[in-house]
Protein backbone atom coordinates (compact mmCIF):
# COMPACT_ATOMS: atom_id res chain seq x y z
CA UNK A 1 0.00 0.00 0.00
CA UNK A 2 2.90 2.28 0.73
CA UNK A 3 4.25 2.07 -2.81
CA UNK A 4 0.83 2.98 -4.14
CA UNK A 5 0.49 6.04 -1.91
CA UNK A 6 3.91 7.14 -3.06
CA UNK A 7 2.91 6.65 -6.68
CA UNK A 8 -0.25 8.70 -6.21
CA UNK A 9 1.75 11.55 -4.69
CA UNK A 10 4.27 11.41 -7.53
CA UNK A 11 1.52 11.29 -10.18
CA UNK A 12 -0.23 14.24 -8.58
CA UNK A 13 3.02 16.16 -8.84
CA UNK A 14 3.21 15.33 -12.55
CA UNK A 15 -0.43 16.32 -13.05
CA UNK A 16 0.02 19.87 -11.77
CA UNK A 17 1.86 21.19 -14.87
CA UNK A 18 -0.57 19.31 -17.13
CA UNK A 19 -3.52 20.89 -15.34
CA UNK A 20 -1.89 24.33 -15.56
CA UNK A 21 -1.44 24.01 -19.33
CA UNK A 22 -4.97 22.66 -19.83
CA UNK A 23 -6.52 25.46 -17.77
CA UNK A 24 -4.42 28.02 -19.63
CA UNK A 25 -5.72 26.68 -22.96
CA UNK A 26 -9.30 27.06 -21.69
CA UNK A 27 -8.58 30.54 -20.35
CA UNK A 28 -7.00 31.74 -23.60
CA UNK A 29 -10.07 30.78 -25.68
CA UNK A 30 -11.26 34.32 -25.03
CA UNK A 31 -8.23 35.65 -26.89
CA UNK A 32 -8.92 33.52 -29.94
CA UNK A 33 -12.07 35.49 -30.57
CA UNK A 34 -11.60 38.03 -33.33
CA UNK A 35 -11.92 41.53 -31.94
CA UNK A 36 -12.15 42.94 -28.43
CA UNK A 37 -13.47 40.28 -26.04
CA UNK A 38 -15.16 42.92 -23.90
CA UNK A 39 -17.20 44.19 -26.86
CA UNK A 40 -18.18 40.66 -27.88
CA UNK A 41 -19.12 39.66 -24.36
CA UNK A 42 -21.13 42.82 -23.84
CA UNK A 43 -23.49 41.77 -26.62
CA UNK A 44 -24.82 43.59 -29.63
CA UNK A 45 -26.39 46.79 -28.30
CA UNK A 46 -24.09 47.47 -25.38
CA UNK A 47 -23.35 51.01 -24.26
CA UNK A 48 -19.70 52.11 -23.93
CA UNK A 49 -20.24 52.16 -20.15
CA UNK A 50 -21.36 48.53 -20.17
CA UNK A 51 -18.31 47.56 -22.28
CA UNK A 52 -16.01 49.36 -19.85
CA UNK A 53 -17.75 47.62 -16.96
CA UNK A 54 -17.26 44.21 -18.56
CA UNK A 55 -13.63 44.99 -19.29
CA UNK A 56 -13.25 45.77 -15.59
CA UNK A 57 -15.16 42.70 -14.35
CA UNK A 58 -13.12 40.32 -16.50
CA UNK A 59 -9.93 42.28 -15.95
CA UNK A 60 -9.19 42.63 -19.66
CA UNK A 61 -7.21 45.76 -18.79
CA UNK A 62 -4.78 43.71 -16.67
CA UNK A 63 -1.66 41.86 -17.87
CA UNK A 64 -2.45 38.40 -19.28
CA UNK A 65 -0.76 36.44 -16.50
CA UNK A 66 -2.70 38.36 -13.84
CA UNK A 67 -5.91 37.72 -15.78
CA UNK A 68 -5.13 34.02 -15.95
CA UNK A 69 -4.35 33.71 -12.24
CA UNK A 70 -7.50 35.63 -11.32
CA UNK A 71 -9.58 33.43 -13.63
CA UNK A 72 -7.97 30.27 -12.23
CA UNK A 73 -8.53 31.40 -8.65
CA UNK A 74 -12.21 31.93 -9.38
CA UNK A 75 -12.49 28.65 -11.30
CA UNK A 76 -11.00 26.72 -8.40
CA UNK A 77 -13.79 28.20 -6.27
CA UNK A 78 -16.41 27.11 -8.83
CA UNK A 79 -16.94 30.65 -10.02
CA UNK A 80 -17.05 30.12 -13.79
CA UNK A 81 -18.89 33.31 -14.61
CA UNK A 82 -22.36 33.64 -16.12
CA UNK A 83 -23.81 32.68 -19.47
CA UNK A 84 -23.94 35.57 -21.93
CA UNK A 85 -27.41 34.48 -23.02
CA UNK A 86 -29.36 33.14 -20.09
CA UNK A 87 -27.37 35.03 -17.40
CA UNK A 88 -27.35 31.80 -15.42
CA UNK A 89 -24.35 30.73 -13.41
CA UNK A 90 -22.12 28.55 -15.61
CA UNK A 91 -21.25 26.32 -12.66
CA UNK A 92 -24.96 25.70 -12.01
CA UNK A 93 -25.61 24.94 -15.70
CA UNK A 94 -22.84 22.36 -15.62
CA UNK A 95 -23.97 20.78 -12.35
CA UNK A 96 -27.47 20.38 -13.81
CA UNK A 97 -26.26 18.79 -17.03
CA UNK A 98 -23.10 16.86 -16.24
CA UNK A 99 -24.96 13.85 -14.71
CA UNK A 100 -26.67 13.15 -18.07
CA UNK A 101 -23.31 13.08 -19.87
CA UNK A 102 -21.59 11.02 -17.18
CA UNK A 103 -24.43 8.48 -17.28
CA UNK A 104 -24.03 8.11 -21.06
CA UNK A 105 -20.24 7.78 -20.88
CA UNK A 106 -20.26 5.26 -18.02
CA UNK A 107 -23.08 3.27 -19.61
CA UNK A 108 -21.21 3.18 -22.95
CA UNK A 109 -17.99 2.17 -21.21
CA UNK A 110 -19.76 -0.71 -19.42
CA UNK A 111 -21.51 -1.85 -22.62
CA UNK A 112 -18.30 -1.52 -24.59
CA UNK A 113 -16.35 -3.61 -22.07
CA UNK A 114 -19.03 -6.31 -21.77
CA UNK A 115 -19.04 -6.78 -25.54
CA UNK A 116 -15.51 -5.78 -26.55
CA UNK A 117 -13.41 -7.78 -24.07
CA UNK A 118 -15.08 -11.17 -24.76
CA UNK A 119 -14.81 -10.48 -28.50
CA UNK A 120 -11.09 -9.82 -28.11
CA UNK A 121 -10.64 -13.01 -26.06
CA UNK A 122 -12.64 -15.05 -28.57
CA UNK A 123 -10.59 -13.70 -31.47
CA UNK A 124 -7.26 -14.30 -29.73
CA UNK A 125 -8.03 -17.86 -28.62
CA UNK A 126 -9.17 -18.80 -32.13
CA UNK A 127 -6.52 -16.87 -34.04
CA UNK A 128 -6.87 -17.15 -37.81
CA UNK A 129 -10.36 -18.71 -37.68
CA UNK A 130 -13.41 -17.32 -39.47
CA UNK A 131 -14.64 -15.96 -36.15
CA UNK A 132 -11.33 -14.11 -35.65
CA UNK A 133 -11.56 -12.60 -39.13
CA UNK A 134 -15.20 -11.63 -38.58
CA UNK A 135 -14.37 -9.93 -35.27
CA UNK A 136 -11.41 -8.09 -36.81
CA UNK A 137 -13.61 -6.86 -39.65
CA UNK A 138 -16.35 -5.71 -37.30
CA UNK A 139 -13.71 -3.90 -35.23
CA UNK A 140 -12.43 -1.94 -38.23
CA UNK A 141 -16.02 -1.03 -39.12
CA UNK A 142 -16.57 0.11 -35.55
CA UNK A 143 -13.69 2.57 -35.72
CA UNK A 144 -14.78 4.06 -39.03
CA UNK A 145 -18.54 4.35 -38.56
CA UNK A 146 -19.75 7.85 -37.65
CA UNK A 147 -21.40 7.40 -34.22
CA UNK A 148 -24.09 9.93 -34.93
CA UNK A 149 -25.09 8.15 -38.12
CA UNK A 150 -25.34 4.91 -36.19
CA UNK A 151 -27.42 6.82 -33.65
CA UNK A 152 -29.83 7.93 -36.37
CA UNK A 153 -30.12 4.38 -37.67
CA UNK A 154 -30.83 3.09 -34.15
CA UNK A 155 -33.53 5.74 -33.73
CA UNK A 156 -35.25 4.78 -36.97
CA UNK A 157 -35.12 1.07 -36.14
CA UNK A 158 -35.72 0.80 -32.40
CA UNK A 159 -37.75 3.92 -31.79
CA UNK A 160 -39.66 4.86 -34.94
CA UNK A 161 -40.28 1.41 -36.45
CA UNK A 162 -40.40 -1.00 -33.52
CA UNK A 163 -41.16 1.39 -30.63
CA UNK A 164 -38.85 -0.49 -28.23
CA UNK A 165 -36.96 2.55 -26.97
CA UNK A 166 -37.79 6.26 -26.86
CA UNK A 167 -36.32 8.21 -29.82
CA UNK A 168 -35.01 11.23 -27.94
CA UNK A 169 -34.92 12.82 -24.51
CA UNK A 170 -33.52 11.82 -21.15
CA UNK A 171 -34.59 11.27 -17.56
CA UNK A 172 -32.48 12.35 -14.62
CA UNK A 173 -30.78 9.41 -12.91
CA UNK A 174 -31.51 10.91 -9.50
CA UNK A 175 -35.24 11.06 -10.17
CA UNK A 176 -35.75 7.62 -11.65
CA UNK A 177 -32.69 5.43 -12.26
CA UNK A 178 -34.55 2.80 -14.30
CA UNK A 179 -36.20 5.31 -16.62
CA UNK A 180 -32.87 7.12 -16.94
CA UNK A 181 -31.10 3.95 -18.06
CA UNK A 182 -33.97 3.09 -20.38
CA UNK A 183 -33.73 6.48 -22.06
CA UNK A 184 -29.93 6.35 -22.22
CA UNK A 185 -29.79 2.91 -23.84
CA UNK A 186 -29.88 3.85 -27.55
CA UNK A 187 -27.35 6.69 -27.28
CA UNK A 188 -25.13 4.52 -25.09
CA UNK A 189 -25.17 1.73 -27.69
CA UNK A 190 -24.23 4.20 -30.43
CA UNK A 191 -21.44 5.59 -28.21
CA UNK A 192 -20.13 2.19 -27.21
CA UNK A 193 -19.33 0.96 -30.73
CA UNK A 194 -15.94 2.67 -30.79
CA UNK A 195 -15.08 1.20 -27.38
CA UNK A 196 -16.10 -2.29 -28.53
CA UNK A 197 -13.89 -1.97 -31.60
CA UNK A 198 -10.82 -0.65 -29.80
CA UNK A 199 -11.10 -3.04 -26.85
CA UNK A 200 -11.64 -6.09 -29.08
CA UNK A 201 -8.56 -5.20 -31.13
CA UNK A 202 -6.26 -4.34 -28.23
CA UNK A 203 -7.32 -7.25 -26.01
CA UNK A 204 -6.81 -9.59 -28.95
CA UNK A 205 -3.27 -8.42 -29.67
CA UNK A 206 -2.27 -8.15 -25.99
CA UNK A 207 -3.61 -11.64 -25.28
CA UNK A 208 -1.89 -13.07 -28.35
CA UNK A 209 1.38 -11.65 -27.11
CA UNK A 210 0.96 -13.14 -23.63
CA UNK A 211 -0.22 -16.52 -24.92
CA UNK A 212 2.80 -16.70 -27.21
CA UNK A 213 5.25 -15.93 -24.42
CA UNK A 214 7.85 -18.24 -22.92
CA UNK A 215 6.18 -18.94 -19.55
CA UNK A 216 2.83 -19.83 -21.09
CA UNK A 217 4.65 -22.32 -23.30
CA UNK A 218 6.25 -23.77 -20.17
CA UNK A 219 2.85 -24.06 -18.48
CA UNK A 220 1.46 -25.78 -21.53
CA UNK A 221 4.42 -28.17 -21.58
CA UNK A 222 3.71 -28.98 -17.94
CA UNK A 223 0.27 -30.12 -19.02
CA UNK A 224 -1.93 -27.25 -17.85
CA UNK A 225 -5.24 -27.08 -19.78
CA UNK A 226 -5.80 -24.18 -22.16
CA UNK A 227 -8.79 -22.96 -20.12
CA UNK A 228 -6.73 -22.69 -16.97
CA UNK A 229 -3.92 -20.98 -18.86
CA UNK A 230 -6.31 -18.42 -20.30
CA UNK A 231 -8.19 -17.59 -17.11
CA UNK A 232 -5.40 -17.90 -14.56
CA UNK A 233 -2.44 -16.51 -16.48
CA UNK A 234 -3.44 -14.95 -19.79
CA UNK A 235 -6.22 -12.62 -18.69
CA UNK A 236 -4.51 -11.67 -15.47
CA UNK A 237 -1.65 -10.30 -17.49
CA UNK A 238 -3.76 -8.35 -19.94
CA UNK A 239 -5.92 -6.81 -17.19
CA UNK A 240 -3.63 -3.80 -16.98
CA UNK A 241 -3.81 -3.30 -20.75
CA UNK A 242 -7.60 -3.54 -20.68
CA UNK A 243 -7.91 -1.01 -17.89
CA UNK A 244 -5.51 1.43 -19.56
CA UNK A 245 -7.33 1.20 -22.89
CA UNK A 246 -10.72 1.60 -21.20
CA UNK A 247 -9.40 4.67 -19.38
CA UNK A 248 -8.19 6.23 -22.61
CA UNK A 249 -11.63 5.66 -24.11
CA UNK A 250 -13.20 8.11 -21.63
CA UNK A 251 -11.53 10.91 -23.57
CA UNK A 252 -13.00 9.67 -26.87
CA UNK A 253 -16.42 9.05 -25.34
CA UNK A 254 -16.76 12.66 -24.23
CA UNK A 255 -15.89 13.67 -27.79
CA UNK A 256 -18.54 11.44 -29.33
CA UNK A 257 -21.07 12.43 -26.67
CA UNK A 258 -20.98 16.01 -27.94
CA UNK A 259 -22.56 14.89 -31.22
CA UNK A 260 -24.71 12.05 -29.91
CA UNK A 261 -26.35 14.26 -27.31
CA UNK A 262 -27.50 16.43 -30.21
CA UNK A 263 -28.92 13.39 -32.05
CA UNK A 264 -30.81 12.13 -29.00
CA UNK A 265 -31.68 15.56 -27.56
CA UNK A 266 -29.98 14.67 -24.28
CA UNK A 267 -29.70 17.79 -22.08
CA UNK A 268 -26.07 17.08 -21.18
CA UNK A 269 -22.92 19.20 -21.27
CA UNK A 270 -22.06 17.96 -24.79
CA UNK A 271 -25.27 19.37 -26.19
CA UNK A 272 -24.76 22.59 -24.22
CA UNK A 273 -21.17 23.16 -25.41
CA UNK A 274 -22.07 22.86 -29.10
CA UNK A 275 -25.10 25.08 -28.62
CA UNK A 276 -22.97 27.62 -26.76
CA UNK A 277 -20.23 27.47 -29.39
CA UNK A 278 -22.84 28.28 -32.05
CA UNK A 279 -23.96 31.27 -30.00
CA UNK A 280 -20.47 32.45 -29.03
CA UNK A 281 -21.38 32.01 -25.38
CA UNK A 282 -17.72 31.75 -24.42
CA UNK A 283 -18.03 31.53 -20.61
CA UNK A 284 -20.22 28.42 -20.95
CA UNK A 285 -17.86 26.90 -23.54
CA UNK A 286 -14.91 27.55 -21.23
CA UNK A 287 -16.68 26.16 -18.19
CA UNK A 288 -17.62 22.90 -19.90
CA UNK A 289 -14.20 22.41 -21.53
CA UNK A 290 -12.59 23.01 -18.14
CA UNK A 291 -14.89 20.58 -16.35
CA UNK A 292 -14.36 17.84 -18.92
CA UNK A 293 -10.58 18.17 -18.98
CA UNK A 294 -10.54 17.90 -15.18
CA UNK A 295 -12.73 14.78 -15.35
CA UNK A 296 -10.36 13.24 -17.93
CA UNK A 297 -7.24 14.04 -15.87
CA UNK A 298 -8.80 12.54 -12.74
CA UNK A 299 -9.88 9.44 -14.67
CA UNK A 300 -6.30 8.92 -15.83
CA UNK A 301 -5.13 9.16 -12.23
CA UNK A 302 -7.78 6.65 -11.14
CA UNK A 303 -6.69 4.23 -13.88
CA UNK A 304 -3.06 4.53 -12.77
CA UNK A 305 -4.02 3.76 -9.18
CA UNK A 306 -6.15 0.77 -10.17
CA UNK A 307 -3.33 -0.51 -12.39
CA UNK A 308 -0.91 -0.22 -9.48
CA UNK A 309 -3.27 -2.21 -7.25
CA UNK A 310 -3.70 -4.87 -9.94
CA UNK A 311 -0.03 -5.12 -10.76
CA UNK A 312 2.54 -4.01 -8.16
CA UNK A 313 5.19 -3.70 -10.86
CA UNK A 314 3.35 -0.65 -12.23
CA UNK A 315 3.61 1.15 -8.90
CA UNK A 316 7.29 0.38 -8.65
CA UNK A 317 8.09 1.56 -12.16
CA UNK A 318 6.40 4.97 -12.27
Amino acid at each position, binding site marked *: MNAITLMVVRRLGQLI*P*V*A*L*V*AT*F*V*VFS*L*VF*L*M*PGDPAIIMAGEYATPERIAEIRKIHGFDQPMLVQYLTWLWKAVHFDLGTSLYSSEEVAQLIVDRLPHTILLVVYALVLGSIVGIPLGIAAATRQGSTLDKLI*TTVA*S*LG*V*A*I*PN*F*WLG*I*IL*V*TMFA*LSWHVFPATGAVSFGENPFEAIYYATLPAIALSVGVVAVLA*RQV*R*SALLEVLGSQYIRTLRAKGLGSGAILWKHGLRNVAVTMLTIAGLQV*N*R*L*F*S*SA*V*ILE*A*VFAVPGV*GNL*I*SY*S*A*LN*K*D*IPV*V*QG*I*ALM*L*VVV*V*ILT*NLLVDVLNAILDPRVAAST
Partner: protein
Amino acid sequence: MTDTHMTIPAATTAPARSLPAPNRFRFWAWLRSDKRAAISLAYLTLLVLAALLAPYIAPYPPNEQNLLDLLMPPSQAHWLGTDDLGRDTLSRLLYGAHNALYAAFLAVGIGVTIGVPVGVLIGFVGGWVDELMSRVIDGILAFPPLVLAVAVTGALGIGLTNAMIAVGFAFAPVLARTMRAQTLVVKNALYVEAAQGFGASRMHLILRHILPNAIQPVIVEVTLMLAVALLAEAGLSFLSLGVQPPESSWGGMLARAYHYVEVAPAQMYAPGLAILFTALAFNALGESIRVLLDPTVKRG
Protein backbone atom coordinates in the same frame (compact mmCIF):
# COMPACT_ATOMS: atom_id res chain seq x y z
CA MET B 1 35.91 27.34 -41.81
CA THR B 2 33.74 28.23 -44.73
CA ASP B 3 35.67 25.79 -46.82
CA THR B 4 34.96 22.80 -44.56
CA HIS B 5 31.31 23.74 -44.31
CA MET B 6 30.98 23.68 -48.04
CA THR B 7 32.70 20.38 -48.61
CA ILE B 8 31.98 18.20 -45.61
CA PRO B 9 28.20 17.96 -45.76
CA ALA B 10 28.51 16.89 -49.37
CA ALA B 11 31.00 14.23 -48.41
CA THR B 12 28.79 12.86 -45.64
CA THR B 13 25.75 12.56 -47.83
CA ALA B 14 27.48 11.00 -50.79
CA PRO B 15 27.69 7.47 -49.35
CA ALA B 16 24.04 7.62 -48.32
CA ARG B 17 23.06 8.30 -51.92
CA SER B 18 25.12 5.51 -53.39
CA LEU B 19 23.94 2.93 -50.84
CA PRO B 20 22.13 0.00 -52.41
CA ALA B 21 18.43 0.03 -51.68
CA PRO B 22 17.46 -3.60 -51.14
CA ASN B 23 13.98 -2.75 -49.90
CA ARG B 24 13.20 -0.16 -52.51
CA PHE B 25 9.53 0.62 -52.58
CA ARG B 26 7.73 -1.10 -55.42
CA PHE B 27 4.33 0.49 -55.82
CA TRP B 28 2.56 -2.08 -57.98
CA ALA B 29 4.00 -5.04 -56.10
CA TRP B 30 2.65 -3.53 -52.90
CA LEU B 31 -0.84 -3.11 -54.34
CA ARG B 32 -0.79 -6.63 -55.78
CA SER B 33 0.15 -8.11 -52.43
CA ASP B 34 -2.38 -6.10 -50.43
CA LYS B 35 -5.85 -6.11 -51.95
CA ARG B 36 -7.38 -4.03 -49.18
CA ALA B 37 -4.87 -1.27 -49.81
CA ALA B 38 -5.45 -1.52 -53.58
CA ILE B 39 -9.22 -1.22 -53.21
CA SER B 40 -8.87 1.66 -50.74
CA LEU B 41 -6.46 3.54 -52.97
CA ALA B 42 -8.67 3.01 -56.02
CA TYR B 43 -11.73 4.23 -54.08
CA LEU B 44 -9.90 7.31 -52.79
CA THR B 45 -8.56 8.13 -56.26
CA LEU B 46 -12.09 7.95 -57.63
CA LEU B 47 -13.35 10.09 -54.77
CA VAL B 48 -10.71 12.76 -55.38
CA LEU B 49 -11.59 12.77 -59.09
CA ALA B 50 -15.31 12.97 -58.30
CA ALA B 51 -14.68 15.84 -55.90
CA LEU B 52 -12.57 17.75 -58.42
CA LEU B 53 -14.89 17.07 -61.33
CA ALA B 54 -18.10 17.66 -59.37
CA PRO B 55 -19.00 20.79 -61.39
CA TYR B 56 -18.83 18.73 -64.61
CA ILE B 57 -20.28 15.38 -63.58
CA ALA B 58 -22.96 16.39 -61.08
CA PRO B 59 -26.36 15.97 -62.77
CA TYR B 60 -27.77 19.14 -61.13
CA PRO B 61 -26.35 22.30 -59.53
CA PRO B 62 -25.96 21.34 -55.84
CA ASN B 63 -28.04 24.20 -54.47
CA GLU B 64 -30.78 24.17 -57.10
CA GLN B 65 -34.10 23.84 -55.32
CA ASN B 66 -37.05 22.16 -56.90
CA LEU B 67 -40.08 22.66 -54.70
CA LEU B 68 -42.16 20.22 -56.75
CA ASP B 69 -39.83 17.30 -55.99
CA LEU B 70 -39.33 17.36 -52.23
CA LEU B 71 -37.89 14.33 -50.41
CA MET B 72 -38.22 12.10 -53.46
CA PRO B 73 -37.06 8.49 -53.24
CA PRO B 74 -34.37 7.41 -55.73
CA SER B 75 -35.63 7.59 -59.33
CA GLN B 76 -34.38 7.82 -62.90
CA ALA B 77 -34.19 11.61 -62.72
CA HIS B 78 -32.61 11.67 -59.26
CA TRP B 79 -30.52 8.54 -58.71
CA LEU B 80 -30.29 9.08 -54.96
CA GLY B 81 -33.50 11.06 -54.55
CA THR B 82 -33.90 14.66 -53.36
CA ASP B 83 -33.71 16.44 -50.00
CA ASP B 84 -36.29 18.56 -48.17
CA LEU B 85 -35.69 21.48 -50.54
CA GLY B 86 -35.86 19.34 -53.66
CA ARG B 87 -32.10 19.42 -54.19
CA ASP B 88 -30.50 16.45 -55.94
CA THR B 89 -28.82 14.20 -53.36
CA LEU B 90 -26.22 12.76 -55.74
CA SER B 91 -25.07 16.23 -56.77
CA ARG B 92 -24.83 17.36 -53.16
CA LEU B 93 -22.94 14.18 -52.29
CA LEU B 94 -20.35 14.93 -55.00
CA TYR B 95 -19.90 18.52 -53.87
CA GLY B 96 -19.84 17.28 -50.29
CA ALA B 97 -16.90 15.02 -51.21
CA HIS B 98 -14.97 18.14 -52.12
CA ASN B 99 -15.60 19.71 -48.72
CA ALA B 100 -14.89 16.45 -46.88
CA LEU B 101 -11.50 15.93 -48.54
CA TYR B 102 -10.56 19.60 -48.29
CA ALA B 103 -11.41 19.51 -44.58
CA ALA B 104 -9.49 16.29 -43.89
CA PHE B 105 -6.33 17.45 -45.65
CA LEU B 106 -6.52 20.94 -44.17
CA ALA B 107 -6.84 19.68 -40.59
CA VAL B 108 -4.09 17.09 -40.97
CA GLY B 109 -1.91 19.60 -42.85
CA ILE B 110 -2.18 22.07 -39.97
CA GLY B 111 -1.43 19.30 -37.48
CA VAL B 112 1.69 18.30 -39.44
CA THR B 113 2.86 21.89 -39.96
CA ILE B 114 2.78 22.57 -36.22
CA GLY B 115 3.41 19.11 -34.79
CA VAL B 116 6.33 17.81 -36.85
CA PRO B 117 8.74 20.77 -36.47
CA VAL B 118 7.91 21.12 -32.77
CA GLY B 119 8.44 17.39 -32.20
CA VAL B 120 11.77 17.29 -34.02
CA LEU B 121 13.05 20.43 -32.34
CA ILE B 122 12.21 19.46 -28.77
CA GLY B 123 13.52 15.94 -29.34
CA PHE B 124 16.73 17.31 -30.82
CA VAL B 125 17.36 20.16 -28.39
CA GLY B 126 16.22 18.30 -25.25
CA GLY B 127 16.77 19.87 -21.83
CA TRP B 128 14.30 22.32 -20.34
CA VAL B 129 12.76 23.14 -23.73
CA ASP B 130 11.77 19.49 -24.05
CA GLU B 131 10.52 19.35 -20.43
CA LEU B 132 8.38 22.44 -20.90
CA MET B 133 6.98 21.57 -24.31
CA SER B 134 6.23 18.00 -23.29
CA ARG B 135 4.04 19.30 -20.47
CA VAL B 136 2.29 21.61 -22.95
CA ILE B 137 1.69 18.60 -25.22
CA ASP B 138 0.31 16.55 -22.31
CA GLY B 139 -1.92 19.45 -21.33
CA ILE B 140 -3.52 19.73 -24.76
CA LEU B 141 -3.81 15.96 -25.11
CA ALA B 142 -5.83 15.83 -21.89
CA PHE B 143 -8.79 17.39 -23.72
CA PRO B 144 -11.36 15.22 -25.46
CA PRO B 145 -10.34 16.19 -29.03
CA LEU B 146 -13.79 17.07 -30.30
CA VAL B 147 -14.59 19.09 -27.17
CA LEU B 148 -11.44 21.12 -27.81
CA ALA B 149 -12.37 21.49 -31.48
CA VAL B 150 -15.90 22.67 -30.62
CA ALA B 151 -14.54 25.13 -28.06
CA VAL B 152 -11.90 26.57 -30.42
CA THR B 153 -14.43 26.79 -33.27
CA GLY B 154 -16.82 28.62 -30.96
CA ALA B 155 -14.10 31.14 -30.14
CA LEU B 156 -12.74 31.57 -33.69
CA GLY B 157 -16.20 31.67 -35.22
CA ILE B 158 -18.12 28.89 -36.95
CA GLY B 159 -17.28 27.77 -40.49
CA LEU B 160 -15.44 24.92 -42.18
CA THR B 161 -11.95 26.46 -42.25
CA ASN B 162 -12.06 27.57 -38.61
CA ALA B 163 -13.43 24.19 -37.56
CA MET B 164 -10.58 22.40 -39.31
CA ILE B 165 -7.99 24.77 -37.82
CA ALA B 166 -9.43 23.72 -34.47
CA VAL B 167 -9.17 20.01 -35.36
CA GLY B 168 -5.61 20.53 -36.64
CA PHE B 169 -4.77 22.21 -33.35
CA ALA B 170 -5.99 19.09 -31.55
CA PHE B 171 -3.89 16.86 -33.87
CA ALA B 172 -0.63 18.79 -33.53
CA PRO B 173 0.36 17.52 -30.05
CA VAL B 174 -0.27 13.90 -31.09
CA LEU B 175 2.14 14.26 -34.01
CA ALA B 176 4.63 16.27 -31.96
CA ARG B 177 4.76 13.49 -29.37
CA THR B 178 5.38 10.77 -31.97
CA MET B 179 7.97 12.88 -33.76
CA ARG B 180 9.76 13.69 -30.50
CA ALA B 181 10.00 10.03 -29.51
CA GLN B 182 11.33 9.08 -32.96
CA THR B 183 13.85 11.92 -32.95
CA LEU B 184 15.17 10.73 -29.58
CA VAL B 185 15.78 7.29 -31.09
CA VAL B 186 17.32 8.51 -34.33
CA LYS B 187 19.50 11.28 -32.95
CA ASN B 188 21.69 8.78 -31.09
CA ALA B 189 22.11 6.54 -34.14
CA LEU B 190 25.67 5.99 -35.29
CA TYR B 191 25.26 7.67 -38.68
CA VAL B 192 23.97 10.85 -37.05
CA GLU B 193 26.91 10.91 -34.68
CA ALA B 194 29.20 10.31 -37.65
CA ALA B 195 27.71 13.21 -39.58
CA GLN B 196 28.04 15.35 -36.47
CA GLY B 197 31.68 14.29 -36.18
CA PHE B 198 32.27 15.41 -39.73
CA GLY B 199 31.06 18.84 -38.74
CA ALA B 200 27.56 18.86 -40.23
CA SER B 201 25.49 21.81 -39.04
CA ARG B 202 22.47 21.29 -36.77
CA MET B 203 20.14 22.29 -39.56
CA HIS B 204 21.78 19.78 -41.89
CA LEU B 205 21.55 17.04 -39.25
CA ILE B 206 17.86 17.67 -38.70
CA LEU B 207 16.82 18.03 -42.31
CA ARG B 208 19.00 15.41 -43.98
CA HIS B 209 19.47 12.77 -41.32
CA ILE B 210 16.93 12.94 -38.53
CA LEU B 211 13.74 14.02 -40.28
CA PRO B 212 13.82 11.43 -43.11
CA ASN B 213 14.53 8.61 -40.67
CA ALA B 214 12.12 9.67 -37.96
CA ILE B 215 9.13 10.48 -40.16
CA GLN B 216 7.94 6.94 -40.92
CA PRO B 217 5.53 6.44 -37.98
CA VAL B 218 4.18 9.92 -38.69
CA ILE B 219 3.25 8.88 -42.23
CA VAL B 220 1.14 6.06 -40.78
CA GLU B 221 -0.36 8.32 -38.14
CA VAL B 222 -1.20 11.00 -40.70
CA THR B 223 -3.06 8.52 -42.92
CA LEU B 224 -5.12 7.30 -39.96
CA MET B 225 -5.72 10.91 -38.92
CA LEU B 226 -7.32 11.68 -42.28
CA ALA B 227 -10.12 9.32 -41.23
CA VAL B 228 -10.43 11.03 -37.85
CA ALA B 229 -10.48 14.46 -39.49
CA LEU B 230 -13.14 13.31 -41.96
CA LEU B 231 -15.33 12.06 -39.10
CA ALA B 232 -14.70 15.30 -37.19
CA GLU B 233 -15.75 17.41 -40.18
CA ALA B 234 -18.90 15.35 -40.59
CA GLY B 235 -19.67 15.67 -36.89
CA LEU B 236 -18.99 19.40 -36.69
CA SER B 237 -21.02 20.04 -39.84
CA PHE B 238 -23.82 17.90 -38.37
CA LEU B 239 -23.78 20.32 -35.41
CA SER B 240 -23.79 23.30 -37.88
CA LEU B 241 -20.34 24.34 -36.64
CA GLY B 242 -18.54 23.32 -39.84
CA VAL B 243 -19.74 23.72 -43.43
CA GLN B 244 -22.45 26.41 -43.55
CA PRO B 245 -25.63 26.11 -45.60
CA PRO B 246 -26.36 26.19 -48.49
CA GLU B 247 -22.96 24.60 -49.15
CA SER B 248 -23.16 20.85 -48.97
CA SER B 249 -21.35 18.51 -46.63
CA TRP B 250 -21.99 14.90 -45.75
CA GLY B 251 -22.51 15.72 -42.06
CA GLY B 252 -24.86 18.58 -42.90
CA MET B 253 -26.83 16.33 -45.26
CA LEU B 254 -27.29 13.85 -42.42
CA ALA B 255 -28.52 16.60 -40.12
CA ARG B 256 -31.23 17.58 -42.63
CA ALA B 257 -32.08 13.97 -43.42
CA TYR B 258 -32.51 13.31 -39.70
CA HIS B 259 -35.24 15.96 -39.48
CA TYR B 260 -37.26 14.17 -42.13
CA VAL B 261 -36.28 10.62 -41.28
CA GLU B 262 -39.90 9.52 -40.79
CA VAL B 263 -40.99 10.85 -44.19
CA ALA B 264 -37.91 9.99 -46.25
CA PRO B 265 -35.76 7.41 -44.47
CA ALA B 266 -33.75 6.69 -47.64
CA GLN B 267 -32.09 10.12 -47.48
CA MET B 268 -29.86 9.21 -44.56
CA TYR B 269 -28.07 6.26 -46.16
CA ALA B 270 -25.96 7.80 -48.93
CA PRO B 271 -24.11 10.45 -46.86
CA GLY B 272 -23.55 8.02 -43.98
CA LEU B 273 -22.15 5.35 -46.26
CA ALA B 274 -19.93 7.91 -47.99
CA ILE B 275 -18.42 8.89 -44.63
CA LEU B 276 -18.05 5.25 -43.55
CA PHE B 277 -16.38 4.08 -46.79
CA THR B 278 -13.98 7.00 -46.92
CA ALA B 279 -12.97 6.59 -43.28
CA LEU B 280 -12.53 2.84 -43.85
CA ALA B 281 -10.36 3.51 -46.89
CA PHE B 282 -8.05 5.91 -45.03
CA ASN B 283 -7.77 3.44 -42.13
CA ALA B 284 -7.05 0.46 -44.39
CA LEU B 285 -4.41 2.47 -46.23
CA GLY B 286 -2.82 3.55 -42.95
CA GLU B 287 -2.68 -0.02 -41.64
CA SER B 288 -1.20 -1.19 -44.92
CA ILE B 289 1.51 1.48 -44.86
CA ARG B 290 2.28 0.49 -41.26
CA VAL B 291 2.92 -3.10 -42.34
CA LEU B 292 4.89 -1.89 -45.35
CA LEU B 293 7.20 0.30 -43.28
CA ASP B 294 7.64 -2.15 -40.43
CA PRO B 295 7.50 -5.79 -41.51
CA THR B 296 7.63 -6.98 -37.87
CA VAL B 297 4.11 -5.63 -37.30
CA LYS B 298 1.54 -8.32 -37.76
CA ARG B 299 -1.65 -7.55 -39.58
CA GLY B 300 -4.77 -7.47 -37.42
